[in-house]
């Protein structure tokens, strides 16, 4: 199909979508309406379960089963990327070389690495209390580790990143979410039911299973993301294809 024909087809389709979407928007409840029946019920349910962060309560208590699916998607992506980005038969493994880093960059990243790690752990641990949670904190933790790559080079990153351990931790965290759900099935009668004591409102142990599920997701996201990025970085830094290593003069 020519570029022009494709564009004409798109514009026709876009006009139809725009017309239907605008008509649908006109029938939505008005913007900034004070009336949110589901939101109010979610807030009431979260306060009843003594979880201060209602978004976490929705994710790890009311919709905990959905979050299991969400977490499985993430786990599946790590598996998929591992499969897609493995070393092909005609590729060689190249030892990463030391790179020069500006001293200011090195200082900045070295200072920020422990701070970012602490922020990540805080965000995961306080997921049921303050804004944040397992998904967000996990991403911060994975980012923190990659500051080693910014501060030094790929070899420094490899030292702070035991991939085998992280792979196993990723799988264990993914599995323990289901195990917490099974605990609900055994003691309470429903899968992923909140069975632990609810604790005092606005303390780190409040919310029953919410902080536990939150922590498993935090570990899974952090480990999964580091493994995922490791495969991408391997492609860029370590692997050389048959046409590439003639150019660089390796071997």
């Amino acid at each position, binding site marked *: 199909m020519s*570029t022009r024909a*494709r*564009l004409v087809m*798109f514009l026709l389709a*876009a006009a139809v*979508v*725009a017309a239907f*979407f*605008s008509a649908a*928007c*006109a029938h*939505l*409840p*008005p*913007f*900034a*309406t*004070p009336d*949110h029946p*589901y*939101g109010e019920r*979610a*807030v009431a349910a*979260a*306060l009843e379960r003594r979880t*201060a*962060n*209602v*978004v976490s*309560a*929705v*994710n790890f208590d009311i*919709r905990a089963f*959905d*979050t299991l699916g*969400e977490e499985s*998607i*993430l786990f*599946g*992506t790590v598996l*998929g*990327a591992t499969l*897609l*980005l493995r070393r*092909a038969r005609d590729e060689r493994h190249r030892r990463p070389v030391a790179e020069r880093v500006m001293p200011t960059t090195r200082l900045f990243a070295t200072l920020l690495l422990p701070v970012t790690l602490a922020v990540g752990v805080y965000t995961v641990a306080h997921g049921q*209390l*303050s*804004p944040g*949670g397992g*998904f967000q904190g996990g991403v911060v933790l994975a980012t923190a580790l990659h500051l080693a790559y910014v501060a030094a080079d790929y070899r420094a990153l490899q030292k702070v990143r035991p991939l085998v351990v992280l792979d196993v931790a990723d799988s264990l965290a993914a599995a323990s979410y289901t195990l917490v759900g099974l605990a609900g099935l055994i003691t309470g009668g429903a899968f992923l039911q909140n069975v632990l004591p609810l604790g005092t409102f*606005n303390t780190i142990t409040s919310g029953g299973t919410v902080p536990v599920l939150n922590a498993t997701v935090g570990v899974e996201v952090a480990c999964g993301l580091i493994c*995922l990025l490791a*495969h*991408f970085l391997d*492609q860029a830094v370590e692997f050389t*294809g048959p046409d590439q290593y003639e150019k660089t003069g390796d071997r």
Partner: protein
Amino acid sequence: MGTWVFLAAGWVLLTALFGLVTSRNLIHAIGCLTVAQSSTYLLLLAVGYRRGATAPVYSDLTPGTRPVVDPVVQALALTDVVVGATVTALLLALTIQLHKRHHTVDPQSLTGLKG
């Protein structure tokens, strides 16, 4: 404001789809897909907004004193972000493989099948 906020989400979606249709580079196309997905965040957050409301977090807020925005759509937006990130990661991995085997990232020059 009225319905303009919702319509903005549709505009972002159509702009991203235009980029996707006319793209000559798969990395650019994946970027367009990410923009298309962010239109859903815009729609979700617009649906959940309440005038004068704050975040649905009661760590330093006495329940009942202030209205809060809808936490259900915020949780949905979070799910959306996670799914979007995973889709982007897998598509980028596929693009790397494609570049290795066919030495191109232009979708229009991918014509024949190759084992």
